[in-house]
C-alpha cells in the first residue's frame, strides 16, 4: 500500500514541471503560459517583479504552486488505489524525465562551453577585487575548457542513466551529488539560481530515497509508468536530445570559445584623447574601451571604474549610439581599420575625442592553456 501523504511532493514536482518558467527551446510557449496565468496574481504581492531567477516573483510563484499542489493532492487522495498509484507513477516518471532533460541541457551547455563562456575582455581587465563573487566564479570557470568538459560529462552521464530502469538507481545517486554541489556553489558564491537548484536537489533526493532505503512501502512508491511500447521512450529521448543539443547541432558551434564575435568586439587601450566641454562621458580619463559581444560598450577609467552603455552600430553612417540607464542616447562617429585595429571615436561635431588601439586580450595569462605536473 502506497503511503498517500508522502506522495504530496510528486504533485508539487508535477506543477513545477508544468509552470516553472524555464527557457525551453522546443516548448518556448511555457514562459508565456506561466506569465499569463500567474504573473497578475504574483504582482498583487510585488507590483514590479517578474519571474527572473531568484526574483521575489519566482518565490511567490513557487509558493502558489505549493498551495495548488496541496489542493490537487487532496483530490488525488479521493482516487481509488489503482488510479492513485497510476497517477503517481506518471508523475514520478515525468519528474525523472524532467531531471534528465535539465541534466542533459546543462551538461551540453557546459560541454560546448556556452554556459561558462570565455570571460569578456572588460572582466579580464577588471581588478579581481572589484568583481562580485558570482561573476568572479562564472568567469573563473570560463577560463578552463577542460573542466567544463568534465563537468558537462558528469551531468550528461547521470542524465542518461536515470532514463533507463537498470541504471536509474546509480544515475539518481550521481545526480543527487551533482545537484548538491550546484546548490552549495550557488549558496557559497551568491549565484542567483538558488531556488531552482534547491528544488532540483529536493527532487533528486526524493526520487533516490526509495532506492537507498528499500522497504516494502518504499518499493511500492518507486514504481514508474511503463513507457511501452518502446517507441514512446524513443520519441521522448529524441525530444530531450533536441532540447539539449539541438541548438549546437543546428549552428555547428561546439565550442563557444572559438565562436565568431561581433564586429570590433574586444579591448582597446586609449592612445590619445581630447576632451569636449560639457560632455560628461569624457570628463574623466579613459584608460580602456571594450566592446562586449552582447551589444555593449564599456569605458574603463584611470581609477578602474567602469561605465557601460547599450551599443548600436550603424555601419553606413559609421556611428555608434550609446544608451545609458536613463535611456539618454549619445551618438559617436567612429572609424575602424581592420588591419591596424585602430578605433577612433569622435563626437558629432567632428572633434576627435578618443583614439584607441586593440589589445591582444586573448594573450592574457588567464586564457592560456597551462598545465604543469611539476613546479620546479
Amino acid at each position, binding site marked *: 500500500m502506497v503511503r498517500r501523504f508522502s506522495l504530496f511532493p510528486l504533485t508539487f514536482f508535477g506543477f513545477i514541471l508544468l509552470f516553472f*518558467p524555464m*527557457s*525551453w*527551446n522546443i516548448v*518556448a510557449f511555457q*514562459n508565456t503560459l506561466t506569465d499569463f496565468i500567474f504573473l497578475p496574481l504574483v504582482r498583487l504581492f510585488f507590483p*514590479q517583479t*517578474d519571474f*527572473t*531567477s*531568484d*526574483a521575489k516573483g519566482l518565490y511567490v510563484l513557487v509558493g502558489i504552486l505549493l498551495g495548488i499542489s496541496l489542493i490537487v493532492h487532496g483530490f488525488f487522495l479521493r482516487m481509488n488505489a489503482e488510479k492513485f498509484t497510476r497517477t503517481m507513477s506518471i508523475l514520478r516518471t515525468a519528474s525523472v524525465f524532467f531531471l534528465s532533460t535539465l541534466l542533459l541541457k*546543462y551538461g551540453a551547455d557546459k560541454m*560546448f*562551453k556556452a*554556459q561558462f563562456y*570565455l570571460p*569578456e575582455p*572588460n572582466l579580464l581587465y*577588471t581588478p579581481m577585487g572589484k568583481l*562580485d563573487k*558570482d*561573476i568572479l566564479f*562564472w568567469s573563473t570557470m570560463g577560463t578552463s*575548457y577542460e573542466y567544463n*568538459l568534465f563537468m*558537462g560529462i558528469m551531468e550528461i552521464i547521470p542524465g542518461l542513466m536515470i532514463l533507463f530502469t537498470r541504471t536509474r538507481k546509480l544515475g539518481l545517486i550521481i545526480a543527487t551529488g551533482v545537484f548538491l554541489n550546484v546548490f552549495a556553489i550557488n549558496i557559497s558564491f551568491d*549565484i*542567483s*539560481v538558488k531556488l*531552482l537548484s534547491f528544488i532540483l536537489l529536493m527532487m533528486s533526493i526524493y526520487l533516490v530515497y526509495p532506492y537507498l532505503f528499500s522497504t516494502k512501502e518504499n518499493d511500492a512508491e518507486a514504481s514508474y509508468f511503463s513507457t511501452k511500447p518502446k517507441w514512446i521512450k524513443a520519441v521522448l529521448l529524441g525530444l530531450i536530445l533536441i532540447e539539449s*543539443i*539541438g*541548438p549546437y*547541432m*543546428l549552428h*555547428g558551434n*561546439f*565550442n*563557444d570559445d572559438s565562436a565568431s564575435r*561581433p564586429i570590433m568586439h574586444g579591448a582597446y587601450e586609449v592612445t590619445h584623447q581630447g576632451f569636449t566641454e560639457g560632455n560628461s562621458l569624457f570628463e574623466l580619463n579613459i584608460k580602456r574601451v*571594450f566592446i562586449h*559581444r*552582447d551589444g555593449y560598450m*564599456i569605458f574603463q577609467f584611470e581609477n578602474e571604474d567602469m561605465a*557601460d552603455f*547599450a*551599443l*548600436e*552600430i550603424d*555601419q*553606413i*553612417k559609421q556611428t555608434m549610439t550609446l*544608451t545609458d*540607464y536613463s*535611456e539618454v542616447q549619445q551618438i559617436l562617429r567612429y*572609424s575602424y*581599420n581592420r*588591419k591596424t585595429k585602430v578605433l577612433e571615436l569622435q563626437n558629432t561635431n567632428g572633434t576627435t575625442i578618443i583614439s584607441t588601439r586593440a589589445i591582444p586580450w*586573448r594573450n592574457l595569462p588567464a586564457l592560456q592553456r597551462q598545465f604543469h605536473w611539476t613546479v620546479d
Partner: protein
Amino acid sequence: MLLFLGANAWSQTKLIAHKSHSGSAKSFTYSLHSKTFNKGESNFGQAPQRMVRNSRLDTVRLLPDARVIMITSESCYWEDYGGRPESNPELWSAGKDTLNGHPLFNAEHTPMEIRKTLQDEYYFTNTPSSVVLIGFDEPKADVVETPKLDQSPLKVRKKKSKSEEPQLPAQKGPSLFYMIIMALLSSILRLPY
C-alpha cells in the same frame, strides 16, 4: 537607424548577464525595467541564447545629384530556435534609404575602391563583390593593350569582365552526419585556444 549590428543575449541569469558587461548592482534595478538593457528573460544559469543581427548591402545607386539610394536586407537569426521574435523593427528595418554626401558612396570613388573599402572597413554579411553598384564610373586606367609581335603574351593586361571575376565557391551547410561527427570530435579533442 539605418543599419544595426549586434547581438542580444538571453543570458545565464539576468544578474550574471548584467555583471558581465560591468553593470553595477545599482544599475541592475534600472536595467530590469529598461527596454534597452532588459533584453530578455532569465534562464536559470543556462547558456545564453543570442540573437545575431546583421545586414546585407544589396544595392547602392548613385544619383546625378550626388544622393545615394541604398537597398539593404536583414540577416538575423537566433542561435537557438526558441521561436521568439526575430528582430526589433524599432531599432532598424531593412529596405530602401537615401543618403546625402556619403564619404564612400560618391562619384570620387570607383567601384573597385568602394569594394575594397567595404572589404576592409565594413562588416556586411555578404561579400563586397555581391553588392550591386549603379552609377559609379569604372576606372579609366585599365587599358587593354594590343600585344606586339616581339612581346611575350604574358605582358598583356586585359581587364576581366565581371563574369570572369573569381567567384567564391557556394557555401553549403554542414550535413547532420558531419555535425554529429564534429560534435563528438570537438568534445573530445578540440581545445579552446
